[in-house]
C-alpha cells in the first residue's frame, strides 16, 4: 500500500469502518511509514479535540428563562402597521424623488462651476477693492513667480 491510499483511509481506520483486509493493509503500511504515522496522530488529535469540546459543555440553567423573556418581549413589541401603497402612488413618489435628485444635482453642479470658474475674477475684484492702486496685484506677483 502506498501513502496516498493509506491517507485516504486513515479516518475510516480510526472509526473502525474498514474491512479486515483493508485494516490489515493500513496497519502494515503504518508500521513502516513515519509520515503516515504523523498524519494518523494529527487525525487522532482531531477526534480528541472534538471529544474535549463535547466534555466542556455545561448546561446553562438560565437558558429557558432567557428564551422565554425574549419571546414575551417580542410579543409585547408594538408592530407598526404597514400601509399598503397603490402602484400609482409608488410611481408618483419615485418620479418626485428622481426630479428632486436632478434639481439638487443641477444646483450643486452650478454652484461648483461658479466657484471654480469665477475664482480669478472674484479675487481680482476683491484685490482691487482693498488695493485700489495699479501698483499691487496679488495675481500678477503670483504669475511672475510661476
Amino acid at each position, binding site marked *: 500500500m502506498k501513502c496516498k491510499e493509506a491517507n485516504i483511509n486513515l479516518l475510516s481506520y480510526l472509526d473502525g469502518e474498514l474491512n479486515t483486509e483493508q485494516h490489515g493493509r493500513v496497519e502494515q503500511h503504518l508500521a513502516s511509514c513515519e509520515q503516515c504515522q504523523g498524519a494518523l496522530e494529527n487525525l487522532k488529535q*482531531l477526534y480528541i*479535540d472534538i471529544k474535549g469540546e463535547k466534555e466542556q*459543555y455545561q448546561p446553562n440553567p438560565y437558558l429557558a428563562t432567557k428564551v422565554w423573556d425574549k419571546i414575551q418581549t417580542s410579543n409585547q413589541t408594538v408592530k407598526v402597521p404597514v400601509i399598503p401603497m397603490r402602484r400609482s402612488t409608488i410611481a408618483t413618489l419615485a418620479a418626485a424623488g428622481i426630479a428632486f435628485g436632478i434639481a439638487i444635482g443641477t444646483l450643486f453642479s452650478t454652484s461648483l462651476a461658479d466657484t471654480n470658474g469665477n475664482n480669478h475674477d472674484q479675487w481680482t475684484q476683491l484685490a482691487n477693492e482693498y488695493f485700489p492702486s495699479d501698483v499691487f496685484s496679488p495675481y500678477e506677483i503670483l504669475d511672475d513667480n510661476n
Partner: protein
Amino acid sequence: MTDKELIEEILQHSSQKAFAMLVERYQELVVKTCKGFTNSYADAEDIAQEVFIEVFESLEGFRSEAKLSTWIYRIAVNKSLNFVRKQKRERLFRSIEGFFTAKNNDEEPMQIEDLGRNKPDSNIERSENKRMLKESINKLPENQRIAFILSKYQDLSYKEIAEVMEVSLPSVESLLFRAKTNLQKHILSEMQK
C-alpha cells in the same frame, strides 16, 4: 411528561413551565450541535436561544410524524449555518472597510502585545493545531460538514443523519466518506506547510 404532552401543554396553555422542561430536555443536543459549527460555546448558546424561539413559534406547524429531536436538529443546523454565513459576510465587509481605512489612515500602527510570549511553545503550537483542525471542518462543503458534525458531535447513526438531512442512507455514507477524505487532505497539506 412525554414530548407530545409537553407540546400540547405549550400550545394550549402557553405554559412557561412546560417550555422550560422542553428547553432543559433538548438544550444539550442543540448547544453541542451548534458548537460543531462555531468556535465558542458563547456563540453556540446565542444560536441555541434563536433555535428555541423558532421552536416555540413554529411548534403549531410541527408534524408529529417526525421525531421532535429530528425537527429540532434541523432547526439547529439551519440556524448555525445562517450564523456562519452572517459571520463570513461581516468578515468580508470588515476586510473591505479595513482596506479603505488603512489607505487613508496616517496614524501610527497600534502596538499589539504579544500575549503568547510567556506561554510555553508547546501551548501555542497546541492551540494553533486546534485552530487548524477546526478550520479544516469549517472548510468542508456544507452538506459534508453537516453530516460530519452530526456524526461526530452528536454520535448520530447514519439513519438518524439521513432523517435530519432528509436524504437517503447511501447519500449519508457518501457524504461522510467525502467529508473524511477532504478532512484528511486538508490536514495533511497543512502538516506539510
